[in-house]
């Protein structure tokens, strides 16, 4: 992520965001600087009101920064495509179209794709998130998880360079969360930059990089291992010092390490821990 000369996806240059509040203004995000290279999976974590969602909307240019600048990288050719797609938290708000297919078409039509092409792209996007068999179903009848997949399909149909998941899993059950993560992983594998905003720390397992926010400031920027595990003989990990409970897997791994077991690499997902433990035999 450092020494390679990767192209830039999104950069924040001294970005602050403030809103009017009682007796002056309230700053939700302070002087944020960061650059996200193309193809990265960035996880943004933080508690309620830490500025995660504000950051997402700034990156998508849905909010405009009070000071500083949000820079988007150079989009590949193909004029009508938007640069950023964003999947929101509430599955019920995202849907505009009546049927699953029409909902995907909505974005395509807005961005001025030609009808023949739009039809193909819509079905292709539904195929990729696994909703193609439900294309003619009324969108309102989908489950919460399926609605989030539909939002994702609507975003990826218009082929943005960057996909932002703004706490998209917070209202979902375990299995739907896994489905959405799986869909995101496939897109990431195909080269899309993913910005995954969450409060559920087991979801950082998929990321290349973790950024933690607290009260509108960036308090951590590094690898998921450095976030979840104590570094350099310290007592607590960054994640704990921010008041988060480490995911179950990390808790188990740390207990194992306390008992003198060696774990390399440090596991962040159930699969990784299972593999590491299996190798001991």
């Amino acid at each position: 992520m450092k020494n390679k000369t990767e192209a830039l996806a999104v950069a924040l240059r001294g970005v602050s965001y403030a809103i009017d509040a009682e007796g002056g203004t309230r700053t939700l995000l302070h002087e944020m600087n960061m650059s996200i290279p193309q193809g990265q999976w960035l996880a943004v974590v933080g508690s309620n009101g830490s500025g995660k969602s504000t950051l997402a909307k700034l990156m998508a240019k849905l909010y405009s920064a009070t000071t500083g600048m949000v820079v988007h990288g150079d989009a590949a050719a193909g004029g009508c495509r938007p640069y950023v797609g964003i999947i929101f938290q509430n599955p019920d708000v995202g849907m505009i179209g009546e049927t699953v297919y029409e909902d995907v078409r909505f974005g395509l039509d807005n961005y001025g794709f030609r009808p023949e092409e739009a039809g193909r792209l819509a079905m292709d996007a539904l195929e990729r998130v696994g909703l193609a068999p439900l294309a003619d179903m009324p969108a309102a009848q989908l489950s919460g998880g399926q609605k989030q997949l539909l939002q994702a399909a609507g975003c990826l149909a218009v082929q943005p360079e960057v996909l932002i998941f703004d706490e998209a899993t917070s209202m979902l059950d375990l299995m739907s969360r896994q489905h959405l993560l799986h869909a995101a992983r496939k897109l990431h594998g195909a080269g899309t930059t993913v910005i995954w905003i969450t409060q559920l720390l087991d979801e950082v397992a998929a990321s290349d990089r973790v950024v933690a926010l607290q009260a509108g400031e960036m308090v951590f920027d590094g690898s998921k291992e450095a976030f979840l595990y104590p570094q350099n003989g310290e007592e607590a990990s960054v994640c704990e010092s921010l008041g988060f409970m480490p995911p179950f897997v990390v808790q188990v791994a740390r207990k194992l390490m306390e008992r003198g077991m060696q774990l390399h690499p440090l596991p962040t997902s159930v699969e990784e821990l299972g593999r590491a433990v299996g190798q001991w035999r």
Partner: protein
Amino acid sequence: MMMAEPGAGSGNRAEETGITLEHVSVCAGDKGRGQRAEPLLQDIHCHIAAGSITLIAGAAGSGKTTLLQTIAGLTPLSRGAVRYGADSLWMEGGRLHPLHASIGIVFQYPERQLFAESIEKEFRYSLRPYRLSKTVQGERIQRALARMGLPEGILKESFLTLSEGQKRKAALATTLAAEPRWLLLDEPTAGIDPQGIAPLIDCMLEQKAAGGGIVVVSHDLDTFLPIADRLLVLHGGALAAEGTPQELLANPRLWLETGIGLPSALHLTVLLRENGIDCDRIPLTAEEMADRIVERKERAVHPLQAGPTPAAATDGNSAGRSLAFARAESSSPLKAAGPAAKQARTASRGTTARVAAARIVRDLHPIAKWLIYVLLSAAVLMQHSWAGIGAAGLITGGLVMLSGVAYRSLRRPIKPFLYFIVLSVAISGIGITLAPDSWRLERIYFSTEAAAETAGLLIRFLFVMIMGVLLAVTTGLKGMQAAMEQALSFLERLRIPAAPFAFAATMLMRFLPRLFQEMDRMAIIVQARGKFQTRRGALRLRELPVFLIPFLLSMMKYAEDLSLTLESRGYQMKRWRRAGSVPLPWTRREWIGVAAGILLFAVFYMWH
């Protein structure tokens, strides 16, 4: 299982004070006029013990929240009974037993139910139904604040100035202040501040230690499985399995088939098993899991030291496991009943002719429908004689039949108007005569003539309204929008963009059902907090702020989310015409429809 708690003084009574659900079924909506209401809960039969924590798991839409609200007495039963100890929660005449005051329910995102100008008033509101003295109220508020680790200074503050984490704690504390014997929690960790989880768990354990019962609905299984005594698994509104966490975790298939997914502890155990590390019991805490892994590893290194202990553990658990398997199997007939029931439903759906008629009405060009609507409305409004109004009624009734629109979707908008008619007719009929040269009342009488005139007028409006509802219900939003864009397209020749108008109107229509949903949700919350006995959905005037403030906040949030969504999906108001919107066809069917409308209009006009 039950611990005798001297403090609560109900140790041995715990068994008889548990909650029993007896074959409980709940159906959505009303069951008027042959409506086939979709069952939300089917034949739930189980016991929930006091002094324990019961976790309800299930995929989204499996009926978890409905079950919790049913236990709280917020949802009327279609069949079956809910008992607290020996007492039925519902009494004769659809009233709740006074024991419902001992139930405290915390809704999903409880911070969104706050309304008062200070947290203290929030507490006073929640405590009002209990008729406590000021001092007792004060003590309880103090205790609740202490339990949630909130400072006393918070009482004077408005919820608008609190952080999200504090709001959540304050809302929880208002329920705790009532010191409910039963604490029902709906997704208490969804969107919670991570720092808020530990105090929440402590609070649940305290409640249990004091002999109270806790029922928690959650998909955050990693957090709640370690403290749950008992587990209810729902699938499609039916109870798929129940037992201790160990019993149900012994069967990974259950978790996959019900669409819940594997909790981390179970997932890890499954992976360990594949790697030859067998755990008889699923270790639910990280500590236990690590112990188990280390134990196995050491045994792998020194195989001779493998003692007889694990075998004993297997024996102890096999009963639970087979029970879970048996349960999981017995649940499959329930699942099989699904398609059969669906078939029966389609079979009873009336003749094919009516279905065909309904389809024609649905597919008719929206502009044709609108023209017919305008013609018929004018025809109806023209009628002054009772015969004419009767004929208008017949026409309206015919249209309702023809369109195949469910009675339920008509009822909601029509009902308030019916009340309005009755009231207006009653008032307009009342006549007062004053004595000459004074304000003394001489005579109060009821004039049927005046009342009939009002009735005639309003009934005609009712018919027009019903037809309007039919128009809206039978026309999909997309169709409505396309038609409006088409009809207004002449504006574009005048360089006025028509598409945004049409779209805005369509989005407004989309807003309405959301509005009703949100009203229903808030009404239930207000009912639970106020502990009063009214039918669901009915509100008392003084509860208005309790209802209105969170409702408006939530609708504002929705509007903001919606506008962000639209923007992010490329909808711009300045666009003239969206690419790819195909004009709807205008065929002979449309001409016939409009001609029929003109004919009816003509007939009515002549008659009038």
